[in-house]
């Protein structure tokens, strides 16, 4: 088993080395085949590990000691249990499909860049697997940093474009801010407990050693880390900008890897989080605010990828709401269903962009239904799934979170339903504007419209099937299911934390949220099936179109003052004070030397004069002694 688990993570790394080092050697076909094959191999190993976990329960394997000092030992251990095996399947499964899709999507690239792309992609999967497999916080942190690095590399993949580089840097810096929180939490744990292994931290004894302040601080710091990685307020602005990368990368970041890391980490540490009431409230409030804020922004965006990006932020908000109200299994469930339909949406959007020759503005699309039949059907399924219409997958997971939110506070539920209605509205606005009505692009574009090749449609079809039926993983008890997923997760999160509602209440809640979502989507379809959205004219419309001016706010409140301060330090402190002092010393010595040099005139007479004068001076100073004066005085007396 040790070998199989090792190979799960080794395959993508081999792929990274293979593609990265041989990027000038291999042909595009070899690269594509190998890169996809390695992830597929990793997927197969994950399935084997999953089956093993189903039969025997959690598996821990020890490889070597990563850090070994007298007081602190951090082993390099992997742990595959119900939670991580599920994540493994999602990451490698969706990852394989995205790799397959990329082989066709990136076909215009030159061979070395093509290989570079797949090398980064493999490294991304590798880092994410490391994050999920690690049996302690430090190994998780290595993977955590790795995905941050890979997202930077992939967002800035087209590095010749300055604004893409800017987006990449933004993603990296925002993530680093979060990482600092995570790192501090790890240090705090080490100081208080002297260990970071899950098996030792998540025990009743360890919990008893921590004061309530410690727990609150640690969980809040961990949450700061999750905020950065999972794009929550206030660190969410990098995710929409991350659209600068190639579309499959967006799918990878948004669905299978990266943003789910925060959810994974909090679910993993649920024992700590459940112990802090305050942190839970903070998480729930941040989650629901993020969900609503980004949903309102998504209502007015016209870039097909931007809408999807904000919808991801919004869905992540739901997941954090779930985590905050203690519905850990609901959050994980939503991660899984979201991975399917969001990957599908992004890949579908990629297919549209591919057909439209890199046009991303939905106002210039329309009527693509007949031209791209497979993309259309799969995209529609994804939209229904994300809108939460039964029996598609998004309904079950979102409903579970909303029910748990209702049990905690009806306000959370009401806000969640409003968010869900907005989700349905903007998704179907996107769908109707893109696929229904008349084509609004140029004739040339219309002429070139074509369905994507098989390598792109196959992932779409597979993901559409998954999006449609993934709800079966967690059919709630009142619908006759037994909620397989939450049973799976009992070893990690214990019995359900959330209060149980009566069946009538649950039915009513479900009915209300579904009805509202359906009404919202029907309005959206009827409004946008004929024409696209105009430029916003109302104040509110402009406000939403400009994303609440949050980027400008950050720019003015943080970036500009920092720039000003750096400018001041550079121009005044560095140039004038420090350089002035250093150069001044040098100048003083030079000036002094130039003056003193004049004394040495070369005239022997002057030298002698100085000799005499200094001898006289010496005599006066040295022989100014009372004994000598007395002697001279005695001589004069004779």
């Amino acid at each position, binding site marked *: 088993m040790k070998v199989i688990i090792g190979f799960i993570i080794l395959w993508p790394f081999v792929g990274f080395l293979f593609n990265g080092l041989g990027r000038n050697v291999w042909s595009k076909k070899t690269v594509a085949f190998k890169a996809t094959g390695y992830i597929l191999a990793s997927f197969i190993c994950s399935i084997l590990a999953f089956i093993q976990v189903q039969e025997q329960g959690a598996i821990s394997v020890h490889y070597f000691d990563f850090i070994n000092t007298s007081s602190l030992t951090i082993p390099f251990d992997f742990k595959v249990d119900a939670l991580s095996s599920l994540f493994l399947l999602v990451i490698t499964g969706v990852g394989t499909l995205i790799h397959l899709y990329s082989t066709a999507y990136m076909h215009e690239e030159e061979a070395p860049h093509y290989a570079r792309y797949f090398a980064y992609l493999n490294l991304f999967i590798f880092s994410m697997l490391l994050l999920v497999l690690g049996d302690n916080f430090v190994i998780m942190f290595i993977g955590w940093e790795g995905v941050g690095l890979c997202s930077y590399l992939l967002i800035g993949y087209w590095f010749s474009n300055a604004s893409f580089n800017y987006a990449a840097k933004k993603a990296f810096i925002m993530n680093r801010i979060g990482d600092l929180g995570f790192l501090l939490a790890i240090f705090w744990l080490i100081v208080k407990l002297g260990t970071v292994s899950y098996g030792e931290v998540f025990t009743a004894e360890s919990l008893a050693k921590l004061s309530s302040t410690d727990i609150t601080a640690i969980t809040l710091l961990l949450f700061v880390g999750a905020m950065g990685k999972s794009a929550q307020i206030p660190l969410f602005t990098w995710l929409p900008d991350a659209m600068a990368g190639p579309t499959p990368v967006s799918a990878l970041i948004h669905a299978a890897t990266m943003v789910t890391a925060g959810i994974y980490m909090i679910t993993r540490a649920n024992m700590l989080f459940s112990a802090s009431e305050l942190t839970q409230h903070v998480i729930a409030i941040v989650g629901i605010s993020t969900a609503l804020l980004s949903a309102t922004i998504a209502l007015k965006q016209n870039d097909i990828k931007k809408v999807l990006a904000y919808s991801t932020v919004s869905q992540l908000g739901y997941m954090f709401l779930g985590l905050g109200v203690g519905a850990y299994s609901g959050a994980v469930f939503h991660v899984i269903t979201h991975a399917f339909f969001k990957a599908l949406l992004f890949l579908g959007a990629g297919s549209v962009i591919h057909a439209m020759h890199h046009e991303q503005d939905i106002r210039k699309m329309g009527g693509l239904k007949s031209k791209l039949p497979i993309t259309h059907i799969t995209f529609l399924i994804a939209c229904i799934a994300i809108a939460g219409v039964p029996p598609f997958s998004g309904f079950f997971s979102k409903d579970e979170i909303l029910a748990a939110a209702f049990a905690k506070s009806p306000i959370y539920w009401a806000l969640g339903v409003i968010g869900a209605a907005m989700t349905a509205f903007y998704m179907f606005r996107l769908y109707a504007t893109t696929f229904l009505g008349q084509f609004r692009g140029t004739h040339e574009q219309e002429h070139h419209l074509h369905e994507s090749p098989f390598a792109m449609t196959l992932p779409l079809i597979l993901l559409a099937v998954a999006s449609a039926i993934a709800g079966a993983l967690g059919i709630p008890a009142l619908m006759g299911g037994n909620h397989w997923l939450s049973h799976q997760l009992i070893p990690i999160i214990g019995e359900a934390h959330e209060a149980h509602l009566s069946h009538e209440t649950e039915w009513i809640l479900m009915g209300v949220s579904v009805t509202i979502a359906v009404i919202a989507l029907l309005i959206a379809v009827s409004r946008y099936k004929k024409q696209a959205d105009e430029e916003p004219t109302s104040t509110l419309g402009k406000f939403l179109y400009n994303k609440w001016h949050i980027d400008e706010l950050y720019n003015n409140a943080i970036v500009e003052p920092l720039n000003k301060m750096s400018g001041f330090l550079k121009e005044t402190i560095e140039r004038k004070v420090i350089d002035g002092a250093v150069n001044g010393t040098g100048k003083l010595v030079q000036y002094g030397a130039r003056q003193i040099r004049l004394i040495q*005139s*070369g*005239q*022997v*007479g002057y030298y*002698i*004069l100085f000799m*005499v004068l200094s001898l006289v001076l010496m005599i006066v100073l040295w022989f100014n002694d009372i004994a000598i004066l007395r002697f001279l005085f005695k*001589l*004069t007396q*004779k």
Partner: protein
Amino acid sequence: MPILNYIYLCLTLFSIGVIGVLVRRNAIIVFMCIELMLNAVNLLLVAFSKMYNGATFANAPTSTIGIDAQIFVFFIMVVAAAEVSVGLAIIVMMYRNTHSVDINFLNRLKN
């Protein structure tokens, strides 16, 4: 004769020597002034020697007190003679090269 007169004489001679060295440009005169200073010191040494020796002469005619100063004088005279031979040789060489014994020609090493 009181010792003070010797001292005044020596100071005068020495000062003349110093001033001569400082103000004259003719190398030979400078040279002579240096000799003057040396001899002023010699004179002073002899004077002090005689003073100490003379104080004890009446009681002990064979006393050697103060004699060592006179030995010093001989040393100085020997050194001065050697110095004169080297110095004059330099001055002769200088004259051959520059047709002048002006001491300010000796700043040619400058720069």
